[in-house]
């Protein structure tokens, strides 16, 4: 097969040469890939490199920068706000991801049960994920309002607290509040994808395990989780990726405040680069996120490897 193609490609000047050339899979492949490749190389690969370069310059908006070596990174190294944002990002990612996983798995297990109106529940559960984050964040902004929060009001009515909670004004409360909003938005994604994984587990495995006298905890531990591990790895990688690079929620709810307590690396890089005008420094912060992201991707890669291995290793 391959040799036929090579000879065809070697003789494009014969009668119908062009059309034969178009049947060559390498030529045709390149042609078909052209639109995607042009856009991705121009607006994804090139900016990625440009970002690395900008991180080594002192470029500002409206002013060409010059190469300053590691100056941006040296500055950031001694910048307590930057380290605070790293801490916040890691805290935000770890806490939100754990909560999203636990609650998402729980919801997936519930939805995997025999339920009336299952399709309907599955559909409405996904709504928080479908709606634009900025717009649902605005709703949370109103829910977290310092004076007229519905949460504060309900808790006061129930007699649990005396004064309204200042959700977004206190550093730790603000952290908890943005994490809660993020978890709210992330649960549906985790739950629905894990549900898809759960549905591929044959019920016969559970029946066999029951006949072997296992209790339900053992069935979860030794049947469900091992069967689900590959998809958990992938889902959580995506979830971590989304959470780590989150921008919208923080930008709407707190803009990094109070006193930078909720600044994530993404919001800090935006603030320094766009309103602050220091494109170089902002790019350096963005590039500083890459090592973390790479580790997440490697995690995903090994998760996928394990999946293939479990399935008997197709290619």
């Amino acid at each position, binding site marked *: 097969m391959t040799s036929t193609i090579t000879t065809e490609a070697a003789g494009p000047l014969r009668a119908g040469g062009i*059309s034969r050339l178009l*049947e060559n*899979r390498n030529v045709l*492949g390149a042609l*078909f*890939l052209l*639109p*995607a490749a042009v*856009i*991705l190389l121009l*607006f994804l690969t090139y*900016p*990625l490199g*440009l*970002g690395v370069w*900008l991180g080594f310059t002192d470029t500002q908006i409206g002013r060409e920068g010059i190469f300053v070596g590691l100056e941006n990174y040296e500055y950031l190294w001694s910048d307590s706000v930057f380290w605070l944002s790293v801490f916040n990002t890691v805290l935000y990612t770890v806490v939100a991801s754990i909560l999203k996983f*636990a*609650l998402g*798995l729980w*919801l997936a*297990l*519930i*939805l995997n049960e025999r339920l009336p109106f299952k399709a309907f*529940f599955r*559909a409405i559960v996904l709504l*928080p994920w479908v*709606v*634009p984050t*900025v*717009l649902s964040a*605005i*709703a949370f902004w109103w*829910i977290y309002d310092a*004076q007229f929060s519905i949460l504060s009001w309900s808790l006061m009515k129930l007699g649990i607290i005396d004064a309204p909670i200042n959700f977004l004004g206190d550093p730790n409360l603000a952290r908890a509040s943005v994490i809660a909003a993020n978890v709210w938005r992330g*649960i549906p994604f985790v739950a629905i*994808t894990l549900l*898809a994984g759960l549905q591929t587990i044959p*019920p*016969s495995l*559970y*029946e066999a395990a*029951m006949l072997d006298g296992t209790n*339900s905890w053992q069935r*979860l531990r030794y049947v*469900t989780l091992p069967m689900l591990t590959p*998809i958990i790895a*992938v889902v959580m990688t995506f979830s971590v*990726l989304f959470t780590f*690079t*989150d*921008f*919208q929620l923080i930008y709407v709810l707190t803009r990094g405040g109070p006193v930078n307590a909720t600044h994530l690396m*993404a919001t800090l890089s*935006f603030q320094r*680069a766009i309103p602050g005008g220091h*494109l170089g420094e*902002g*790019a350096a912060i963005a590039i500083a996120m890459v090592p973390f*992201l790479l580790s997440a991707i490697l995690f*995903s890669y090994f998760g996928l490897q394990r999946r293939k291995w479990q399935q008997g290793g197709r290619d």
Partner: protein
Amino acid sequence: MAVTETLGKKKRGDEGGATYLERTPRRLVTLYLPLAIFIFVLLFPFYWMTITALKPDNQLTDYDNYSPFWVVKPTLDHIRYLLFETSYLPWLWNTIVVSVAATFLSIFAAVLGAYAIERLRFTGSRQVGLGIFLAYLVPPSILFIPLAFMVFKLGLYDSKWALILTYPTFLIPFCTWLLMGYFRSIPYELEECALIDGATRLQILVKIILPLSVPGLISASIFAFTLSWNEFIYALTFIQSSENKTVPVGVLTELVRSDVYEWGALMAGALFGSLPVVILYSFFVDYYVSSMTGAVKE
């Protein structure tokens, strides 16, 4: 906490074939109650959004005389204000134009790319496939600064083209990856028959592969449209003038004034910005779910 709860539930959580062994009262506590709480928490912000958008100004913050959970005399004032006294309708139009254009561009590029990678099997197609997957993992939060730099240089700043050309950076990898999965499921024999009948690859793609992958195309389009509709950071960075903004950016930057929060109009804006994707989603739930889970599973 949640983990222990999960285990508690699993104690009688007999999947599939053995569920008949469960008793209703137990299911009530272990299944329906948690489900009700989940549904309530997940949907409450939408309810709150809607009810706030309909409340007259005097009820908005007066929790003593009016129950905050209900509205006595619903008003459309906030919605009227939003639609006719702000630039909301132009924002809506911009969002539609940008989303549709970016989706079409991405689907076009992704169909050709996915077919090339999956079926032409040219030299290096596997590496290109992996590259596409890696491109999917590059987040906009890293790209927006260099892209802003480029957008300035290319003279695209503050135009819809800045968004139409940059949204495909996250749409194409996703759509290509999804369509590769769909194309893989189409029997190769169909294509071989067509080749023997003398069809060109382009004819095969248009006349055989595409009609068979309509569900995949719908999934990819819906998802791409929703992703463009929801995009925020590029739109915030590349667009300056009010008349070019998209809904999420417009609502946040123009309806929020530092002195007075017009919560009614804000919530109406959030509601109307969400409705198009929610309606689209409600018609194509299964496609949406399959594209989401498919992208993860592939």
